[in-house]
């Protein structure tokens, strides 16, 4: 549905995006991650046809955004960063206007507006002008605009920015549900969101893709991934760590806390973490430890994110806008 090939954008001497390529099919929700100023918004603006790429192409449902902008834009819904909307219009007026620009008129327009008003919980503010709304409502009004024509492709730039936790949850549920039938790209800073919503995630830093995979795959790149954490009811942490260190599959151990006793064991490269877990539970039975918890670490996305992008943010230092 969305095909991005070697997309580049330079502003004068500054390279904002340097050769980004990826594909998103229907039924996929692609999370777009990256530090501020990494080029997320610029990439999205090129895909939606707001700014022309310096090089490369974006193809939406078979239409090149530069050569056939109208056809491509028709297939797409877009929520720009900061959710802009016409301050002097009412919510109803704004939604009717965008529906009309999308070619909906008469009964179809009315139905489309009703549908998104219900989906985005806007009933209470329908006749209020946009400038009097709170940030959350304004954000949802612009979000409603992006889905008014039930597009096949949805591009959302920080859709949960500025929402309270309940609203965030609603929007995530909505994105996940729509992701079953649409091709969705959304950018975010919130890593838990990626795990909750995305079928795939791309981490972009300083204009290029540095990681691309399912959230589970990305988490596996974490240093914690595969380690076994053991929590015991009694005993000495040092003694337990020493016993675990003696196991053949253990690379090293780490004492997380003395009381309550918690120890983490990291497997050697060639050892599967399930085998390690089995070995640990065997030794625990032999030693008659009272196990409170024994679990395999999945790895953490924020850790992966930091190890991949930290060196670069240190270099560039400040946000570029």
């Amino acid at each position: 549905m969305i095909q991005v090939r070697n997309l580049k954008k330079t502003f004068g001497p500054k390279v904002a995006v340097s050769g980004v390529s990826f594909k998103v099919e229907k039924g996929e929700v692609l999370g777009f991650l990256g530090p501020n100023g990494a080029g997320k918004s610029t990439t999205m603006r090129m895909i939606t046809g707001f700014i022309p790429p310096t090089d490369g192409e974006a193809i939406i449902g078979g239409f090149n955004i530069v050569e056939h902008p109208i056809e491509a834009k028709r297939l797409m819904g877009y929520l720009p960063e900061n959710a802009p909307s016409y301050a002097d219009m009412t919510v109803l007026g704004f939604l009717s206007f965008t529906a009309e620009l999308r070619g909906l008129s008469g009964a179809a327009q009315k139905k489309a507006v009703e549908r998104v008003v219900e989906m985005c919980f806007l009933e209470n503010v329908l006749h209020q002008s946009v400038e009097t709304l709170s940030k959350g409502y304004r954000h949802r009004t612009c979000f409603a605009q992006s889905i008014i024509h039930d597009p096949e492709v949805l591009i959302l730039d920080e859709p949960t920015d500025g929402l309270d936790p309940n609203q965030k949850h609603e929007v995530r549920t909505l994105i996940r549900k729509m992701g079953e039938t649409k091709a969705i790209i959304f950018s975010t800073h919130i890593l838990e969101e990626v795990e909750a919503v995305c079928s795939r995630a791309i981490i972009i830093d300083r204009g290029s893709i540095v990681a691309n995979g399912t959230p589970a795959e990305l988490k596996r790149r974490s240093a914690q991934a595969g380690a076994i954490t053991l929590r015991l009811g009694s005993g000495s942490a040092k003694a337990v760590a020493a016993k675990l260190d003696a196991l053949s599959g253990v690379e090293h151990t780490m004492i997380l806390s003395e009381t309550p006793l918690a120890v983490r064991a990291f497997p050697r490269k060639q050892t599967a973490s399930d085998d390690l877990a089995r070995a640990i539970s065997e030794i625990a039975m032999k030693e008659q430890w009272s196990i409170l918890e024994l679990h395999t670490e999945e790895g953490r996305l924020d850790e992966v994110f930091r190890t991949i992008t930290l060196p670069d943010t240190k270099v560039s230092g400040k946000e570029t806008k």
Partner: protein
Amino acid sequence: MKSVITIAKRELTGYFASPVAFVFIVIFLMLSGFFSFMVSGFFERGQASLESFFAWHPWLYLFLVPAVGMRMWSEERRLGTLELLLTMPVTPWQAILGKFIAAWAVVALALGLTFPMWLTVNYLGNPDHGVILAGYLGSFLMGGAYLAITAMTSAMTRNQVVAFIVSVVLSLFLILAGYPPVTNMLVHWASPSLVDGIAAFSVMTHFESIQKGVLDSRDILYFLSVIVFSLFTTGVIVRTHRAG
């Protein structure tokens, strides 16, 4: 065409939702009345014509039309709605035309509401209706020309004040190039053909001949070409300067 109308409709609601349109219309009517009756001596002239009324239009428009048009693009830029508008399935031309038509309609409405002037001269005597109609047409075209220039400057910046000042200066140049005090001064040290050439760029020269009732295609073409040129430039600016 449908998108042009949709955008024009939205712009018009915008003009009337904010007091911009009302303020413009009221001030235009008040000032045009004041200048033609008090300053130009509408009654004292003893002529059933609207010459004293139309003569002030280039100067009234100079400040009022940029005030109407300055928000046209700079507001979109400031609010970020430009990104929304240009990622809709509309071409930049449709947006430019829609916005321009809506603003021009506001000017036309203000101009139309001066009809009591026409009634007055009718009551007082026997005016030449052809001349008055030509005057209205010329005024309408001149308003469009100023407005197109304002659209152009508005597209350049997100600051409405900057857009206003730059369009006033550009429009002032178009007035002064053919304003008799200026041309009389130029005659002393420039060849007459050069002075005429400069004057040909002026709205004054063209507006005055239309106002006299002479509908020369060159005058109409002049205003239309100012509009087309300015809107074309607006298009270039909007398309190359999107992200700003």
